[in-house]
């Protein structure tokens, strides 16, 4: 295909302007500028996944089981996330098509809608939990619940308008960097370096508790790092940003930087909640209303530590509102051939995209305001649902990234496939084991 046959659209012009800066930096050998310009989708997807329910899951894990097994386990799940997201980034850079777009075009609308339905359901539930996290964080400062809903929805609306992907991306990254606040809280919790070293080397002690609770936390931690929305988001954002096969190296670096920062922040959330484990504080009701973990931690990590934890929760929820709403928008926009699905387009050229982006946030906000909703249970089960619905999405990804017709020389290597299959089997096994144990405990032993 050549350039000559087509006139540029507004979306082309916006993307081309960004790309010319990238090409110029590469031509001049300005490596630092090049990395800065190409940084974005990888950092955002990883910090977006350090969202409200994920940080609460890490805190619940630290408060219930300490650091023994779970500290290295969280690091391992992030390594798995890097591996999955690298494949999605590569697929987007080579094909210039989003995950949903490829799914619909290569496998047909039947499998496309099935996977998209998974995305919409898990995203709606996760968005609800993001607003809950913002609410819990804000309640530490005495801010009423409805403000959390207004802030969350307003953020999505304000960031979406401007018809420029790069603008949206930089707003989101500016917010996402505050994920590091959890590290300050962790430092103020004064965890023992020797205990951290012992945990990382030995993966022990595993702690005591019911098998069902242990499996729930294992699944929650997996669902905090490998989820369907991440696949949709990073691949589509890679396309929207305009990455090409030549940028794959920088795309990997972007994903790796995001992975490292997110791992540090995720482990920090676990470490920050460690005093609750040491002092045997009952954390089973902490996320339901009230200021939750931040308030419970205040006697142990001080008012500043608790403040940073609460601010971190607000940030985690806010960034995830942006990225998860965007993944819904990309997914739905890509389902309809010819419908615009880019932040580089104005509202009238991409109505489905913007309607899905803002509609998802508004719907989640409206649901959170329903009185008497079981917010605690929804939060705990959000990541679990993601674990159950991730395997089909991973299988489609593996098939596409092995498709020579699509990928050419960038097709998966053997080790990619071995790890990909092993990861898919592991996630399926974890979800199956939890579902079986919980089902037997509930319907068999209870009876």
């Amino acid at each position: 295909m050549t350039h000559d046959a087509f006139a540029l659209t507004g979306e082309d012009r916006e993307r081309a302007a960004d790309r010319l800066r990238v090409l110029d930096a590469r031509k001049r050998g300005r490596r630092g500028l090049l990395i800065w310009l190409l940084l974005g989708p990888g950092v955002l997807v990883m910090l977006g996944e350090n969202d409200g329910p994920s940080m609460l899951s890490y805190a619940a894990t630290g408060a219930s089981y300490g650091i023994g097994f779970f500290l290295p386990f969280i690091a391992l799940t992030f390594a798995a996330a890097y591996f999955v997201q690298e494949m999605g980034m590569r697929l987007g850079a080579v094909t210039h098509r989003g995950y949903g777009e490829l799914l619909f075009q290569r496998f047909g609308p039947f499998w496309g809608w099935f996977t998209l339905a998974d995305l919409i359901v898990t995203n709606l539930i996760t968005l609800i939990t993001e607003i809950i996290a913002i609410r819990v964080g804000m309640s530490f400062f005495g801010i009423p619940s409805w403000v959390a809903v207004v802030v969350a929805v307003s953020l999505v609306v304000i960031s979406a308008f401007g018809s420029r992907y790069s603008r949206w991306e930089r707003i989101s990254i500016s917010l996402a960097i505050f994920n590091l606040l959890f590290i300050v809280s962790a430092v103020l919790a004064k965890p023992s370096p020797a205990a951290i070293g012992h945990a990382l080397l030995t993966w022990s002690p595993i702690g005591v508790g019911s098998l069902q609770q242990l499996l729930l936390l294992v699944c929650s931690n997996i669902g905090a790092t490998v989820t369907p929305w991440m696949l949709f988001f990073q691949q589509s954002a890679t396309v929207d940003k305009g990455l090409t096969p030549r940028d794959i190296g920088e795309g990997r670096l972007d994903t790796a930087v995001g992975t490292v920062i997110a791992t540090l922040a995720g482990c920090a959330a676990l470490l920050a909640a460690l005093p609750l484990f040491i002092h045997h504080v009952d954390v089973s009701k902490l996320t339901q209303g009230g200021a939750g973990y931040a308030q419970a931690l205040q006697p142990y990590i001080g008012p500043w530590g608790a403040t940073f934890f609460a601010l971190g929760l607000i940030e985690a929820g806010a960034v995830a509102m942006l990225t998860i709403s965007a993944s819904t928008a990309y997914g739905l926009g890509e389902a309809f051939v010819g419908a615009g699905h880019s932040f580089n387009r104005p509202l009238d050229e991409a109505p489905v995209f913007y309607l899905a982006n803002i509609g998802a946030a508004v719907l989640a906000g409206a649901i959170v305001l329903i009185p008497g909703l079981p917010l605690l249970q929804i939060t705990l089960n959000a990541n679990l649902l993601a674990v159950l619905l991730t395997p089909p999405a991973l299988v489609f990804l593996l098939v596409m990234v092995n498709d020579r017709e699509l990928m050419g020389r960038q097709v998966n290597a053997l080790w990619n496939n071995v790890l990909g299959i092993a990861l898919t089997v592991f996630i399926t096994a974890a979800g199956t084991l939890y579902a079986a144990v919980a089902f037997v405990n509930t319907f068999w032993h209870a009876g």
Partner: protein
Amino acid sequence: MTPTSHHHRTEAHADDELIEGLEPDQLVANMSKPLPRMQLSRGWTVFFWALRLFVLLLTAMVVAVFVVDLRS
């Protein structure tokens, strides 16, 4: 030269420079063309169905546990 024709010529000149920033496949006109459907073998189709049904079964089990937990 009228202001309108000058404007069009300037825009066309700017587009000539901008277009160098994109690969041909990155143009919206090219990205909007659907790719051909993959020919799925019977084995893959059966596998996709089996995985899908299994996932739906697990989801139903977890939702049932969720509902019972809520009632209790």
